[in-house]
């Protein structure tokens, strides 16, 4: 259901093409609907975190070094914020995250909830939250490097 909502939001992105403001895109699609829905999901059933949702094994060698070294991103966050195409790519990358990572990441970075609130809502410990956020950041960065910072501009 969460996936469907995200997919609907992702497919509906064309309707916002042209004059979409950050507010219509973010408040309308991401913030209220999805966060509320997500909270209900958490209450209704305990979400489990699959083993394969740990991206560190595919990003690091056994000796702890990067398999593929992160590239240097040269972008201005304010310009990125106004770049509609980037927001669509970002939305797509967030939607690819495993369910639980996606939930805590959205609450933390988009809704701006504090650690305590997120832990309470998702029924996890701060340590667990830190691991989930770390995995989400790694996966998101890899996705953005592929779809935005790497391939599409070179």
């Amino acid at each position, binding site marked *: 259901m969460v996936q469907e909502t995200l997919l609907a939001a992702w497919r509906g992105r064309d309707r916002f093409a042209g004059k979409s*403001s*950050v*507010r219509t895109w*973010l*408040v309308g699609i991401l*913030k209220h609907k999805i966060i509320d829905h997500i909270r209900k999901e958490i209450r209704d059933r305990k979400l489990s975190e699959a083993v394969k949702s740990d991206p*560190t094994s595919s990003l*690091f*060698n056994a*000796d*702890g*070094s*990067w398999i593929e*070294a*992160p*590239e*240097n*991103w040269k*972008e201005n*966050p*304010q310009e*990125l*914020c106004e770049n509609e195409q980037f927001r669509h790519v970002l939305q797509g990358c967030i939607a690819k995250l495993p369910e639980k990572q996606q939930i805590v990441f959205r609450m933390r*970075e*988009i809704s*701006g909830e504090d*650690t305590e609130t997120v832990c309470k809502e998702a029924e996890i410990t*701060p340590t667990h*939250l*830190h*691991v989930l*956020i*770390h995995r989400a*950041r*790694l996966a*998101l*960065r890899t996705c*953005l*490097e592929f779809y935005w910072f790497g391939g599409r501009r070179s």
Partner: protein
Amino acid sequence: MNHFCREASQLQSDAFERQLTLSEHIRLRIHLLICEACRNYADSLKLLNSFFHNLRKQVQQDEGITLPDSDRERIKEALSRTSDSAG
């Protein structure tokens, strides 16, 4: 040889979530001095962090502008009451 990059990536994310211990902080700083890949990772996390910060700021500003009329009336009333009692 054992590399610190995997641990460094967790610490860099944690630094946005909690205060690192002194030893974590020092180990991370030293590693960043010698590892370009982790410096790039650090920069991209900072970029994403300010991106989300900007987004939230814009949303807050937009929401402030679009307060429902009923709320705006209540705020105006409350403000006038405050200035009445102050004066």
